[in-house]
């Protein structure tokens, strides 16, 4: 048995503890080890993708106890892809945090970031529902620390609300686990699927309640409409790089919905018939619309990025809710796009905030004005789904997958209208922030010519940047990943198709995890 599948969990966990214990007062050392750890995680993720692309489900039994008695990790194409996405995002966020000096404004930033990566990778790899809860808690605990990093009254208030909301979500998660265990007697995802399919009628109600509660919890994590209220305030108040890392957290919710519906809650089971399609699709449609409206109405850059995240999660959830092989493949293509685009927007928002404050209003010219504007506008093109970048392809595929659906008019209408509103909101914000000089500062227009004027405007901002270059490297690396996703759309789509074929083959997954012949 190869130990590769457990490495994305063990490496960040060990590294985080190591950073905490041996170099808590040495920021330079922390930076070196954190970046090295992120690079190593990326390399491991690449190996995992290579390993998973043979089409097998690779099972890793912790402590060598056979499932369902022990806890198993399962690596397939979908989880390998998500781990790779996490590693890439972690690397870019680490570089940005070092470049912008965010890690120097409070303690333990790098350790928390590594713990967060551990929780996210674990959530993607585990094959056990209760273990999924534990990894959710790990990533949440780390996110609490990252969210209130560097302190401040507003951040602490938003942090309290975020923690309280998520503790409530965790409690619901446990209620769901209890109900599912009481009904089926197992918490292994594959075993759950097998047992729910043959559940006697008298236990069906309990299993159904548990499954519905569980999907509701994942909807909370994904910030779907009725339960999305925690996101804008929390992400807008969080430090920029933390918010960029949080872009993957909503995707953990979407991933869990996809995984659970495919593996543990087979729609064919009489106990679960019609469990989620009645409300998941309307919720997703409403999420996309409310996110777009929020983008249009946002008065601060960070809030703009937060609502942009909600809009793209809504689009992603539409594809996840349709749950046909074609729509799930479109969802898997859109997933990395949506994560990276949201992260770029949070980084762009942080760049603007660092230089001249968060407000979307005409203001003084910033340091590196043209570069920041480039990051923002490229990110906006990606987030709104305009043609050159992958968001356009992703939305097109989702709409294509919805063609045979009975509510196709709604789906097309919402995706198109939401994209238009998002585009308007982003264009408004971009032109206000980057192209319109502040009142009484008409001279700024004349200086528009000399780009990259590091001397900056007369504004109050432009604090000493440890390394502005590094922040741009991080942001453009994410944009380059988006461009690569566009150029290599063919291979990416083939991978997504194969991943979905594997995801929907619950029998093969159960055979591998439960060691059935």
């Amino acid at each position: 048995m190869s130990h590769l599948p457990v490495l994305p969990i063990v490496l960040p966990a060990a590294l985080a503890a190591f950073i905490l214990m041996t170099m808590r007062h040495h920021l330079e050392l922390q930076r070196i080890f954190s970046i090295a750890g992120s690079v190593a995680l990326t390399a491991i993720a690449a190996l995992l993708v290579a390993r998973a692309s043979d089409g097998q489900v690779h099972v890793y039994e912790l402590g060598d106890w056979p499932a369902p008695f022990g806890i198993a990790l399962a690596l397939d194409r979908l989880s390998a892809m998500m781990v790779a996405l996490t590693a890439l995002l972690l690397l870019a966020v680490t570089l940005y945090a070092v470049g912008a000096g965010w890690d120097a404004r409070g303690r333990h930033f790098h350790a928390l970031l590594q713990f967060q990566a551990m929780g996210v990778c674990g959530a993607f790899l585990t094959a056990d529902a209760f273990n999924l809860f534990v990894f959710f808690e790990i990533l949440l605990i780390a996110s609490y620390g990252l969210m209130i990093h560097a302190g401040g009254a507003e951040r602490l208030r938003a942090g309290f609300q975020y923690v309280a909301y998520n503790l409530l979500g965790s409690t619901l998660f446990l209620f769901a686990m209890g109900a599912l265990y009481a009904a089926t007697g197992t918490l292994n995802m594959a075993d759950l699927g097998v047992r729910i399919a043959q559940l006697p009628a008298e236990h069906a109600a309990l299993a159904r309640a548990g499954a519905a509660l569980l999907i509701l919890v994942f909807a909370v994590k994904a910030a779907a409409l009725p339960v999305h209220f925690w996101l804008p305030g929390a992400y807008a108040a969080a430090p920029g790089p933390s918010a960029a890392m949080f872009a993957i957290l909503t995707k953990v919710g979407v991933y869990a919905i996809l995984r659970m519906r495919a593996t543990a809650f087979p729609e064919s089971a009489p106990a679960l018939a019609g469990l989620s399609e009645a409300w998941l699709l309307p919720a997703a449609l409403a999420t996309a619309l409310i996110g777009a409206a929020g983008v249009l109405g946002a008065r601060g850059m960070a809030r703009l990025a937060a609502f942009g995240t909600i809009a793209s999660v809504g689009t992603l959830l539409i594809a996840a809710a349709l749950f046909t092989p074609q729509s799930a493949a479109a969802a898997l293509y859109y997933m990395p796009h949506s994560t990276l685009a949201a992260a770029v927007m949070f980084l762009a928002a942080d760049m603007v905030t660092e230089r001249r404050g968060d407000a979307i209003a005409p203001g003084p010219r910033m340091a590196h004005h043209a570069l920041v504007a480039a990051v923002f506008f490229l990110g906006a093109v990606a987030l709104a789904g305009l043609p050159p970048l992958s968001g356009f392809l992703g939305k097109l595929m989702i709409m294509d997958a919805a063609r045979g659906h009975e509510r196709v008019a709604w789906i097309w209408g919402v995706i198109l209208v939401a994209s238009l509103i998002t585009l308007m909101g982003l264009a408004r914000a971009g032109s206000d922030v980057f192209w319109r000089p502040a009142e009484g500062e008409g001279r700024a227009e004349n200086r528009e010519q000399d780009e990259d004027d590091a001397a900056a405007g007369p504004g109050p901002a432009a604090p000493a940047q440890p390394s502005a270059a590094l922040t741009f490297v991080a942001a453009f690396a994410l944009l380059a990943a988006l461009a690569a996703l566009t150029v290599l759309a063919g291979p990416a789509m083939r991978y997504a198709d194969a991943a979905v074929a594997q995801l929907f083959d619950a029998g093969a997954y159960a055979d591998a995890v439960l060691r059935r012949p």
Partner: protein
Amino acid sequence: MELLFASAVGLLTACGIYLILRRRSFPVIIGLSLLSYAVNLFLFASGRLAVNRPPLLHEGAAGYTDPIPQALVLTAIVISFGMTAVIVMIALSDHLTSRDDRVDAPAGGAADDGVEAPAAQEDAR
């Protein structure tokens, strides 16, 4: 016994939800703790209630109770305990930095609008 147990879980949950909807951070934290007690009891009962049955091998035992929910509850207790400590610390530092412990208002928001401030003062009494 089942009725008593179920009522206890229900009562704890109801009190917890009532308290989370309060607008000061202290009742909210107490409410979250009550909810976590409720869910711990619920998890415990998910392996069916049994009296005087050992969970692990024991000589002369007439029967066994399900050990898995006990392990789950242990994990859940540890996690909810840690989480409560975290949220208490955040609430404390929030209270110390913004001089009020409202959950809903933006930090320092009470100072901005004069209408809210007296009400908040009175509540704090």
